[in-house]
């Protein structure tokens, strides 16, 4: 990235693409693996934690960006952590108030959002260097990228582990969601390892492999479409030949 782009800020589409795909916190940066692996046994758990994380990320990115010129470098990390902790406390209290049962299921993993490296990572790497609008957008997109991976993991593990999809969504959406549960494999299906920790590692690995595969295919296509330099042609203003 050239210095010109930094002063103007990256383009909105670039920030969006970064968060959702190229620099996805869960699949590429591999940050926040603890909640990623621990709570994605079902869609409702994944969605609950993902939304909380996203809210914290947007809030902390915004505030960190606002104070970025007023906090000295020496104390910036403690300041960031305090800001993040404040937002996590807010999220925790809100979940306690509105989705108490889900709050009980997620338990310790809600306060542990503070230690999610993705959040501190974005505060340090992006929000403390960019204008507030970009920082908030980055928080939204990074949070969204994390949320999507969490929900995908939760859906796959719930489907293959317990044979259900969208079970107990009423914990998050109220009585409307009572009838959302799908049971495509019948009532007696269960494949415990998908719900247990090994399943989380396996499915995460497969998701990462899938992303890398898609990237490789896209790259191959782009390469095929690009004009190839003719072999032996001379480069302008460089020495040597193109091999």
């Amino acid at each position, binding site marked *: 990235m050239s210095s010109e782009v930094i002063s103007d800020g990256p383009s909105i589409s670039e920030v969006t693409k970064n968060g959702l795909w190229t620099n996805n916190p869960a699949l590429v940066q591999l940050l926040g693996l603890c909640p990623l692996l621990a709570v994605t046994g079902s869609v409702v758990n994944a969605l609950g934690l993902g939304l909380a994380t996203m809210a914290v990320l947007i809030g902390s990115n915004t505030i960190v960006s606002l104070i970025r010129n007023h906090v000295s470098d020496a104390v910036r990390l403690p300041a960031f952590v305090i800001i993040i902790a404040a937002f996590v406390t807010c999220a925790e209290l809100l979940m306690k108030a509105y989705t108490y049962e889900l709050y009980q299921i997620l338990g310790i993993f809600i306060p542990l959002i503070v230690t999610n490296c993705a959040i501190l990572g974005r505060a340090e790497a992006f929000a403390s260097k960019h204008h507030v609008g970009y920082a908030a957008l980055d928080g939204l997109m990074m949070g969204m990228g994390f949320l999507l991976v969490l929900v995908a993991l939760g859906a796959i593990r719930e489907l293959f582990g317990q044979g259900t999809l969208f079970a107990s969504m009423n914990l998050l959406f109220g009585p409307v969601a009572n009838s959302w549960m799908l049971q495509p494999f019948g009532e007696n299906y*269960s*494949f*415990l*390892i*998908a719900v*247990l920790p*090994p399943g989380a590692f*396996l499915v995460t690995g497969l998701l990462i492999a899938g992303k890398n595969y898609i990237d490789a295919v896209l790259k191959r296509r782009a390469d095929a479409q690009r004009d190839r330099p003719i072999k032996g042609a001379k480069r302008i203003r460089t020495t040597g030949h193109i091999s």
Partner: protein
Amino acid sequence: MAFKQVSSPHAHAAQNTAQVMKLVLLATIPGLVALTWQFGWGSFINVVLASVTAVCCEAAIVKMRGRSISFYLGDYSAVVTAVLLGLALPPLTPWWIVVVGTVSSIVVAKQLYGGLGYNPFNPAMVGYVVLLISFPIQMTTWVAPLALLPAGTAHPGLMESLQIVFAGYSPADGVTGATPLDVFKHSSGLLVDQVYDREPLFNQAMFAGAGWEWVNLGFLLGGIVLLTQRIFTWHGPVGMLGALALMSIIFWDSGSSSSPGSPLMHLFSGASMMGAFFILTDPVSSAVSNRGRLIFGILIGILVYVIRAWGNYPDAVAFAVLIANFAAPFIDNYTLPRTYGHTDRRRATEKEEG
């Protein structure tokens, strides 16, 4: 006396992978025969079904990886994995259990890590543990041995067994039963002698556990054949069986109610012999040097006993082998053999000092 001058290499022609694997397959026959004799057709069906599934999985993955299918299927390693898994699974278990286990073995534990020679864990044991964790009920339902069947009944025949495996028929009463290690685990409060008196699994047995002693003798026989054919060295099996025997002697507690069982029972029931000769001798996932294999075997023997005596599972060969697989690179690091021409052990890549 004439000294013939022979040029190097002096080693005999090594057997190729396919020959070794075929010998291992042949050596499982006594165990399979004993299982079929004592527990009916279930194990035979398991072995065939697992082999077919394994060959299909291996072919599919090798094709996806763009390699030669005939070359990779020709080394028989997939069949060996499948046969070992099939022997380890309970007879008359539903067909999908066997298929899920085999797919976990071949696709996840073997091919995702790069195929034969690259798998850090024993593929058959990974498949077994995936099943044991996922389907505890089906995996702990064993068939009763021949001596324990109700008078006048026999194990289901081949057709009936196929119906039980593929169509979900339930076997007749009395066909299923516990294993000796199960019985022993759940008989706390009784002296060892009392357990032996009361439980038909023991009072119908010659020395270890009805049916199971024959299966273990079968695997012991096959293992000794492989040993004399120098398919593996004695270090791993002797380490494991020695450690298992020593542990069970130390904690025998002269047959009190808290004794975890006699050395004979531990050596000749469960998967002891199969584990010692067919599982931990896997050249890929075990330690490399002779000393390393001895330590590797001892570690497995101790772990098997510890989990059997004080853990939650009645048998533990699969878990013990997987844990020891984790430790194998570490063991290798500290058991480097001395290279010919050097006075002490060191790595070939280490730089000369000074």
